[in-house]
């Protein structure tokens, strides 16, 4: 259980035309060596911004770290100089982006683009870098890698381009790989291929992955742990099973209920009412309260702290306070909880009462 990355009380704002947007409002999480942590949430919840701030890829003139640390191997990434950060990017931490159609340089051969981080971070000759780039292409499943080195991005399909982006990200065997919705822009069948590839590669090189997505199906497929983000904060974090079968935060309930599934016969799909909060002037208290059916008076007054559910499972909702009334989650969620030992609705025989 070696922690490779610790994000502590991270707060980040954008200075925009309209005013200060508090995009991240106190985010805490750890990343353990070799695990895959999924960050889920709606658009604008701050999940992409969180990872971009780890890489320090946000525009410097408009974004500002207000508070907190990002500790990587004991170094605080928020405090590094640009030069020091350049040595970490692409070598220790690398990133895969959402849209493979636009994330490759259109006027540079893909061979050069893959060789770039190798030449940059490792003291090797061009011919070695070339050979390694070919190997990388083979590793990500590109047929005829030698011949394709000299081609330009527009000669590849979307799925192939994402494989190239993955090859670039893996070029220096990074300790952390950040995947920012790597499959969102791809066809469903290609999505599966890319996910399989990533799982495969993770086993081979033992890297930690932060996987950003809003697709809970993908989360179930790849993640070890899940962090749910809402309004610039993590509202619940736990193992995949804990989040899927014993969720505690009303927002997580909402997210899970709005996921279509084959085994629930419900014809009507649940939709969370309302829109995400305006982070120009974030609401007081629990940001989700205004959209929640389970809001308490205190939700409108004070921000809930993290309540411990288990050693690996925390949720920030006043519902877990000992004085809070017992509420029943939506039916579909209760059905799920019945299957999870340790939840208060468990109906199995292992006898876990809450």
């Amino acid at each position, binding site marked *: 259980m070696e922690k490779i990355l610790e994000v502590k009380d991270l707060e980040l704002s954008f200075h*925009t*035309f*309209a005013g200060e947007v508090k995009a991240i409002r106190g985010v*805490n999480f750890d990343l353990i060596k070799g695990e895959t942590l999924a960050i889920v949430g709606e658009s604008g919840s701050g999940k992409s911004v969180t990872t971009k701030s780890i890489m320090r890829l946000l525009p410097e003139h*408009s974004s500002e770290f207000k508070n907190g640390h990002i500790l990587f191997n004991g170094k605080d990434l928020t405090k590094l100089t640009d030069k020091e950060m350049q040595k970490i990017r692409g070598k220790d931490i690398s990133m895969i982006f959402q849209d493979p159609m636009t994330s490759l340089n259109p006027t540079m051969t893909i061979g050069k683009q893959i060789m770039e981080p190798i030449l940059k971070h490792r003291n090797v000759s061009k011919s070695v870098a070339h050979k390694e780039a070919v190997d990388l292409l083979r590793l990500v499943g590109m047929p005829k890698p030698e011949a394709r080195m000299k081609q330009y991005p527009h000669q590849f399909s979307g799925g192939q381009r994402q494989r190239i982006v993955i090859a670039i990200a893996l070029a220096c065997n990074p300790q952390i790989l950040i995947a920012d919705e790597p499959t969102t822009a791809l066809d469903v069948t290609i999505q599966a291929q890319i996910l399989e590839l990533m799982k495969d590669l993770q086993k081979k090189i033992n890297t930690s992955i932060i996987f950003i997505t809003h697709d809970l199906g993908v989360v179930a497929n790849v993640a070890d742990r899940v962090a749910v983000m809402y309004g610039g904060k993590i509202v619940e974090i736990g193992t995949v099973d804990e989040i899927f079968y014993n969720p505690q935060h009303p927002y997580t309930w909402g997210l899970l209920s709005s996921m279509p599934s084959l085994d629930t016969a419900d014809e009507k799909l649940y939709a969370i*009412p*309302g*829109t995400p909060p*305006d982070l*120009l*002037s974030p609401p007081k208290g629990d940001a989700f*309260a*205004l*959209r*929640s*059916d*389970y*809001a*308490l*008076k*205190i*939700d*409108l*007054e*004070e921000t809930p*702290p*993290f*309540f*411990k559910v288990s050693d690996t499972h*925390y949720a920030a909702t*006043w519902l877990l*306070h000992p*004085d*809070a*009334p017992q*509420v029943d989650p939506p039916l579909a969620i209760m059905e799920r909880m019945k299957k999870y030992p340790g939840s208060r609705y468990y109906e199995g025989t292992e006898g876990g009462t809450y």
Partner: protein
Amino acid sequence: MSLDIKKIPAESFERVHIDSSQAERITKPSLSFWQDAWLRIRKNKGAIASIFILVFIIIMAFVGPMVSPHDAETQTITHANLPPKVQGLEKLGIFDGVGTLAGKEVDLYEMKKVDTYYWFGTDGLGRDMFSRVWEGTQISLLIAFVAAIIDMVIGVAYGGISGYYGGRVDDIMQRVVEILYGIPTLVIVILMLLVMEPGVTAIIIAITLTGWIGMSRIVRGQVLKFKNQEFVLASRTLGASNGRIISKHILPNILGVIIINTMFTIPTAIFFEAFLSFIGLGLQAPDASLGTLINDGYKLIRFQPHILLYPSIVLSLLMIAFNLLGDGLRDAFDPKMKD
């Protein structure tokens, strides 16, 4: 991570009912296209300064000749080639009517026994430059605005029809444009001016003859882009007429582009008029525009630099202000810049 928190009164944990329709309420005041654009323009110092400069120059173009005690046409030969002299400022050693004569600095007003003031001096025929500059500005602005409006009307109509109807109509119209576009503007303008009677109308016709093509290409591109977008298709499925689609859906969306482009046509037209007048193809005396004034001044640059100076300053200010304002408008209307 679970914390011991301060005692919270039990009633805080009462359930409250949240009206979820409330959650849909948009708290940010909604801004119309124009309000939004104005907000952006207001932040652009260059554009705001330009608006003030333009307003000032336009007002002066009409008021200037009236406030000057001398009118633009009267030739007072005894008052020829006087340098600028302004009441009040003369004591500061500037605008005091001192000029160079045969290598020596002398007060030309005193020498020529002139007891009046010419704020911008006089030209070789003793005409008041102040009135002439502002009347020239009037003519230049008139040519520029009329040319820009004609360009806009023809360009929008041509490009709009070509883009909206598409198919064969578009094909034929675009072939015509393709050929016309190949003809250098300079060549066509010079040829037209050689044939036509020189004057304001001739210059406007010459400038607009090819000027509308740029606008038509931009408008066509925009119409093509918008006519296949979902909101237009949706309106069409609901049975909206062509007229309604054009006026309610397409036009408001391309209005920004049209305005920006027109903003850039104006300085181009001002420049072309000045250019033509400078090479002797523009207005003929006694009509004067900024271009002809500069041409007159250029011939006397070594002896009477003030004749060149003032029309050049006004012309340059006009061009800078229109370009800056165009830039500001482009930034304000360009949705790509929205953050």
